[in-house]
């Protein structure tokens, strides 16, 4: 019996001194990998889900267009509008916008620019096809209908 008692005297605490460091590492990982969104979206964005998605490889080549009913309906009305960066643009301005976006890229990569369309479910195809026609005009032919995956949240 005496022998067992001696054993129980040993220190059983787990050293937790390294715990803050581990947590900090996790923290830094998340700080580095996540990107804060730079633009505030002023249109309603309920994006339809799809199954057969493809991933884009080069994030730097992507420019976003947001389409949907404006959130501030008193000022902008209920018709779906196009938002690029922080402002609403008209259909005729798309060519100019694409040129500006292309200027941001390296010269060799300009043709590879991909336009990601984030469109609300209730937008009509008339508007979408007008955008597509302008993109063809601007020679930005890679297009992605950005959608979340079905079933996932």
């Amino acid at each position: 019996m005496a022998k067992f008692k001696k054993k129980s005297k040993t220190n059983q605490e787990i050293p937790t001194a390294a715990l803050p460091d581990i947590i900090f590492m996790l923290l830094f990982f998340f700080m580095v990998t996540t990107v804060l969104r730079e633009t505030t979206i002023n249109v309603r964005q309920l994006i339809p889900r799809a199954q057969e998605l493809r991933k884009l490889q080069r994030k730097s080549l992507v420019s976003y267009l947001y389409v949907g009913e404006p959130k501030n309906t008193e000022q902008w009305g209920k018709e779906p509008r196009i938002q690029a960066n922080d402002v609403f643009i008209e259909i005729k301005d798309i060519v100019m916008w694409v040129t500006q976006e292309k200027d941001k890229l390296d010269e060799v990569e300009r043709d590879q620019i991909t336009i990601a369309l984030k469109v609300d479910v209730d937008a009509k195809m008339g508007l979408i096809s007008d955008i597509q026609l302008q993109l063809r005009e601007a020679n930005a032919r890679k297009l992605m209908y950005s959608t979340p995956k079905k079933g996932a949240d």
Partner: protein
Amino acid sequence: MAKSKERREITINSSSMADIAFLLLIFFLVTTQILNEKGLTIQLPPKPDDMDIIDVKIKERNLFKVLINSADRILVEGEILQSMPELRQMVKDHVLNNGRNPKMSDSPKKAIISLKTDRGTRYEIFIAVLDEIQGAYYDMYAERVGLSNERWREVASDHKDPEDKKLYETGRNMVDGTVLFPMNISIAEPSKVGG
């Protein structure tokens, strides 16, 4: 006096450090959004005035027509589509026909899926239909090389690896630089009048 002062251990209690770090961590987890760079990709045709205006004659049998009207009803090859999953099999039957059924395509190379909407069609329906059509193609490609549909899409998005590249080329049946199994999806300009 001096000696006793030195012996006193001065430590800052750091047990709450982990809690503080946890709070920061949770804050970042909640506030940041990982950018979603996934979606349905298509390649637009070139500028209308750049294209040579040649009347390419396409045989009726090679065209697979999908029409969506402004009331979001879908017409496939002249018949009303009852349920969305049916569309996928119909597309596959059409493309893989290889001349057997005289109403369907001659070969996968010649088969064209034509998707036409109305200006009043809702975007949601368009995406649902495009998703099914592209899915049908991905299924067929994946089957040709014995991959899962999901893996095929990964290969198609990124085939820098030589082995992946080979898979990608066999899947699309590339012979001497021409793709014999292309994904011919034509998105026509919508009709102006609702119907």
